[in-house]
């Protein structure tokens, strides 16, 4: 069964460093998303991406964040200068076409900023 994959599963970085989180969405999907979940809190939306541009972004998704689809399979989230409060699980998701809104999530990357 097709699934969303994410790498790495765990990333530890120092405050101020740049990180790139990687995702491979389901192969025939066209809509891509990033969400995050701070420990013990709700899953919260960061950004949606379609046709090589951002469709929607939340207030959390400020200038420190960027997304890219560098090739036909990968979808990345970059955080330019990490802060302690960026520590969270980051989930990538994707949706197909045909009017379906279901979003399928990857296993997540646990980001720890020290």
């Amino acid at each position, binding site marked *: 069964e097709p699934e969303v994959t994410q790498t790495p599963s765990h990333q530890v970085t120092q405050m101020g460093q740049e990180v790139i989180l990687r995702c491979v969405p389901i192969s025939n999907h066209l809509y891509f998303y990033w969400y995050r979940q701070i420990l013990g809190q709700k899953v919260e939306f960061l950004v949606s991406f379609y046709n090589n541009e951002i469709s929607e972004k939340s207030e959390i998704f400020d200038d420190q964040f960027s997304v890219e689809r560098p090739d036909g399979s990968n979808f990345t989230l970059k955080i330019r200068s990490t802060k302690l409060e960026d520590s969270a699980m980051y989930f990538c998701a994707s949706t197909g076409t045909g009017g*379906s809104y279901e979003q*399928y999530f990857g296993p997540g990357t646990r980001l720890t900023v020290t």
Partner: protein
Amino acid sequence: EDQVTQSPEALRLQEGESSSLNCSYTVSGLRGLFWYRQDPGKGPEFLFTLYSAGEEKEKERLKATLTKKESFLHITAPKPEDSATYLCAVPLRYSSASKIIFGSGTRLSIRP
């Protein structure tokens, strides 16, 4: 304000003891409602989509129902492997690019 609220926060059941989880929502025009299962340290796993009041979906021991203001996830004769956090979520726009907002989840624990 668009909001999704789930109750109870946590539920402990004996194996075989049926129960229901609740999700109430306040969004301006429902565009569908999703149920997900989340295991500790993992991503949400899609279970169901419900689009209109009166709709029901079933999968193994789970049945999801939808009214105009809330959704229920009924679990019949649960097993320990059903232990997980169950999340309810709604999309905010009629678009596949729409953000979805999640409830806080119900942590379900099934004792053997």
